[in-house]
């Protein structure tokens, strides 16, 4: 019996160790001067000081976060409205919405190829602006995460019955949606938004193809530092991880406080 009780803890601890090993190794390596066969040759803060005195670091982080916000907002608004409409008014449409939202998973290349073609064509329309293109591509790429998170959340609450209860008590459908349904969807929205944020924040390929060196995010900074020593890159990776962690913790803290 005791053995059975301990087993889940052992599995969780092993999983944590497995997940933390790459992070710990990267962190340790960022403090080393070099590496002998088995042990570090020595320890230094040099690369950390170098990273934090680098004037492009914080603007690059900020750019990464900023480029994530519009696609997440656009995607959330579109998906929430579409799902709300389908759940409340046209339940039969939901399977079509699901199919549409899952397409970017299989056709990611196409979503990148189209703006690239537009770039080569050299148009001067609103959509040929590189930032607009980036926002549009990211909005499409994160659609499956956002959709899945919000859908699961929406199905977890009995939307129709809650709306009916509110309607009987004298509330309009829109008011009931804003006051009752939306607050109950907050957890799902936050989780899917965080997933989307980590996808966009960690992206390198799309930004490199569309923006080149004109919009340097932290991923681009990492790419451009490939010729500098490896320890410096480790520092940037740790900073990226920490920023994502801090953002997600802030969001969860905010959510818990709201509860």
């Amino acid at each position: 019996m005791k053995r059975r009780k301990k087993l889940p803890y052992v599995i969780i601890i092993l999983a944590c160790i497995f997940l933390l090993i790459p992070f710990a190794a990267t962190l340790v390596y960022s403090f080393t001067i070099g590496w002998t066969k088995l042990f570090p040759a020595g320890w230094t803060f040099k690369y950390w000081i170098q990273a934090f005195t680098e004037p492009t670091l914080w603007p690059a982080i900020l750019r990464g976060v900023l480029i994530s916000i519009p696609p997440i907002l656009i995607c959330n608004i579109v998906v929430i409205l579409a799902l709300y409409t389908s759940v409340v008014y046209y339940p039969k449409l939901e399977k079509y919405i699901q199919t549409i939202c899952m397409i970017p998973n299989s056709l990611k290349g196409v979503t990148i190829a189209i703006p690239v073609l537009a770039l080569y064509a050299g148009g001067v329309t609103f959509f040929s602006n590189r930032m607009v293109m980036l926002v549009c591509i990211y909005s499409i790429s994160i659609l499956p995460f956002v959709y899945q998170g919000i859908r699961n959340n929406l199905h977890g609450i009995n939307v129709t019955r809650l709306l009916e209860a509110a309607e009987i008590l004298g509330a309009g459908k829109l008011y009931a949606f804003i006051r009752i349904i939306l607050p109950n969807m907050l957890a799902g929205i936050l989780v899917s938004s965080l997933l989307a944020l980590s996808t966009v924040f960690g992206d390198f390929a799309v930004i490199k193809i569309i923006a080149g060196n004109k919009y340097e995010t932290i991923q681009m900074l990492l790419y451009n530092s490939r010729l500098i020593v490896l320890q410096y890159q480790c520092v940037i990776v740790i900073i990226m991880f920490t920023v994502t962690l801090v953002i997600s913790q802030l969001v969860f803290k905010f959510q818990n406080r709201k509860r």
Partner: protein
Amino acid sequence: MAYIEFRNVHKSFGNNEVLKGINLSIDEGEFVTLLGPSGCGKSTLLRCFSGLETVTEGEIYLDGTNITDFTPKQRKIGMVFQQYSLFPNMTVRQNVAFGLQMQKKDKHFIAEKVKDVLHTVGLSDKLDQYPRQLSGGQQQRVALARAIIMEPKVLLLDEPLSAIDALLRRNLQVEIRKIQQNLKMTTIFVTHDQEEAMVMSDTIHLFNVGQIEQSGSPADIYTHPQTKFAANFIGHYNILSNPDLKKLCGLSSDCDFVAIRPEAVLISPEPLNDAVHFQGKITGVMLRGTTISYTIDCDGIELRADTLFETNRQRNMGEMLQLQILKEDILHLH
């Protein structure tokens, strides 16, 4: 004119006609139960009355006004749902106050009224708790408080007790009935539980496949079921065909079927006047709390007989019994 009137109400979902011309009158202050098996149309009728569904044909009147095309908000009714439908992001206080806030009532008035109503349902100490922190019974009482705080013209209860355990359900049945009587609130209650209907109602309307099978007081419906369905659904009656009745006791009926209440099958060696007599063998014994049910084989005809449970007078399987039924207890079904 009655306080509530349904006039020839039809409701169809596609080709499926769920309500087939319902005509129904309810008096002010009455506690009416719509009783029937799942899918018989009782909840649909309630939803049509609340305005959550539109009727395909017919009219609904409330207090002399045709409300058929009114929105739920315009009807001034209160409703309690089977799954409580409390707003999970709001406290008990906020849930109960929601309706009055929609009416833009004064904050002080709302606060006082919320306290009063929660006192009525016995939840004064749960004001700042969230629905997830309450038990099923407490949640249902909050839902009731949220409905009655609006002082609705009619209170609609859509199987509100079906998700609650048996003991709590019995307590809530009594509490709801008491609150309804104190407030003199016209109430329509939907259930598939005949015992619940018997305990709570002034009048029962028994539904079957979109039509009202029989209406009357609980005692009336229980003692005088008019159809085979009513006899089966309401009282677990023994239903016998005319040839079976003849075989059992030599009597004959003008109707195709007769119904006999299980407690009207008397296990007694002393013959009564105006009764039919026969023998039977016990093939099953089932204890049901205060009563005991015997399944008895009477020459190939199976009967159920219910008697009071007495520890020292239990019959055994296989025992032969002298049975009798008063002739007046043999009900002829139309």
